[in-house]
């Protein structure tokens, strides 16, 4: 190997020698220090490889031995250099291309945006442009972390912004803020649920109920009125005709209606219950998964009568997007058994009440004020207890119809 590299570096020629005195030619050449490689003879023709520096000596030996020598092939680095030297234009072109790529790679060539929904890409790009993130900016002069902060300040609509260099592309990824749905003031105000009206305040529209009234779910509380028209008179210009401003084009009701409402939750619990519980024993089954095919090596079947099974896949060897198409599969069998739970009536009622209270807490709106709670045992026989818990709350009743 080393010899080949050495010969390639120094250059060699493949010669063809024709004549009657080929042995004389070889001996003459050897005397002058010529080294031959892969010398083959076909009748009166001899083929051999000669080092570039030996060629002149070989030629002289051939002249003395009256043998004709011609070069068949030139190989090695010196000839490559010579050839490239002749194609100077191509060499300059390659160097120019490399230099251009090298220079261009130092600049930002494009800015792309990902993750925007309501914000337009154009707006983000223009904000980035103001901060200096734009094509043809020298990448080395950019302080990405700082720019990221500045861009986040410039775009308050976003909760998170990342600026990332991906080669010559600057990728701006944004996560927009999720605003709560805006209340559309439109139409009548109706009762969200049944209750007794305790407070009523009308800002706009016609009240359809009065304090102390019992209302059903969906009943109109304040009816929408025609849009209000406000007359504006400019005191500075008394002669100027008054202008009318229409605040809204749709009829709308505005106001507050608060009242008492009731919430309830019921829970039925058996006195004896059967549950599936893990015993704590578990075993692992190992296998190989190739595509859709699974070959289990240990525990292809569950060793337990009743069990939960958890499947985990492990990837073996992966590099970037490439991975070995075979995966290792682990099946974790966890033994389970059916357990019976017996409760006394008191225990069952306490548990049922606890469950019902937590269910009730989920029903009551957070801003509602709880006035009182109450629990009722509906029945406790036949192996079951049924409990209802109810709460009286004071809350906003009025909502807009869709």
């Amino acid at each position, binding site marked *: 190997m080393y010899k080949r590299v050495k010969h390639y570096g120094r250059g060699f020629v493949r010669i063809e020698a024709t004549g009657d005195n080929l*042995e004389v030619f070889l*001996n003459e050449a*050897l005397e002058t220090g010529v*080294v031959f490689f892969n010398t083959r003879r076909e009748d009166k023709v001899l083929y051999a490889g000669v080092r570039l520096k030996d060629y002149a000596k070989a030629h002289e030996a051939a002249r003395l031995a009256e043998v004709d020598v011609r070069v068949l092939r030139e190989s090695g680095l010196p000839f490559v250099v010579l050839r490239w030297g002749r194609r100077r234009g191509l060499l300059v072109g390659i160097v120019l291309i490399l230099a251009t790529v090298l220079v261009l790679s130092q600049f930002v060539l494009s800015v792309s945006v990902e993750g925007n929904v309501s914000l337009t890409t154009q707006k983000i790009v223009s904000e980035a442009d103001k901060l200096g993130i734009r094509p043809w900016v020298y990448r080395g002069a950019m302080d990405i972390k700082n720019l990221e902060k500045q861009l986040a300040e410039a775009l308050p609509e976003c909760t998170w912004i990342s600026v990332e260099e991906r080669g010559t592309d600057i990728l701006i990824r944004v996560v927009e803020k999720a605003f709560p749905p805006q209340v559309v003031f439109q139409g009548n105000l109706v009762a969200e649920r049944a209750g007794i009206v305790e407070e009523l305040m009308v800002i706009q529209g016609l009240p359809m109920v009065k304090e102390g009234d019992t209302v059903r779910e969906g009943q109109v509380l304040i009816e929408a009125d025609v849009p209000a028209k406000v007359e504006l008179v400019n005191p500075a210009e008394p002669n100027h005709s008054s202008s009318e401003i229409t605040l809204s084009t749709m009829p709308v009701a505005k106001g507050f209606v608060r009242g008492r409402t009731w919430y309830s939750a019921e829970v039925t619990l058996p006195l004896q219950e059967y549950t599936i519980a893990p015993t704590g024993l578990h075993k692992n089954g190992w296998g190989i998964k190739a595509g859709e095919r699974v070959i289990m090596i240990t525990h292809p079947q569950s060793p337990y009568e009743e069990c939960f099974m958890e499947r985990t896949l492990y990837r073996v060897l992966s590099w970037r997007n490439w991975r070995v198409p075979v995966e290792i599969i682990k099946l974790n069998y966890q033994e389970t058994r059916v357990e019976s739970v017996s409760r006394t009536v008191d225990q069952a009622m306490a548990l049922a009440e606890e469950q019902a209270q937590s269910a009730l807490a989920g029903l009551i709106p957070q801003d509602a004020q709880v006035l009182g709670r109450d629990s009722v045992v509906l029945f406790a026989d036949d192996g079951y207890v049924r409990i209802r818990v109810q709460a009286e709350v004071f809350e906003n009743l009025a909502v807009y119809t869709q």
Partner: protein
Amino acid sequence: MPFKQWQQKIGETLDLPEDVFGGGPRITLFGFAVVKIEDFQQIISFSDEHVVVRVGMGQVELWGRNLVLAELSLHEIEVKGEIHGLKLQEGETCTKG
């Protein structure tokens, strides 16, 4: 006692290898495919089936098929190919070259 005999005797006494004091060539055979002859003097004849070289004490003949002189320099010759026979012939030979 002639000088050559003295040389040989000293070599034998000191347990030196033959090629150090003997003045003869060293012929190495690697399997049936490669023959290396060091310290040869001249190529007498050479074809793809027959190679004859002159060494200090006579000549070495090689027969075979597709014989190629893999490397050939002033003192060393390496022949590759299917080697069928090797013959050593002592004494002065007339050279063809």
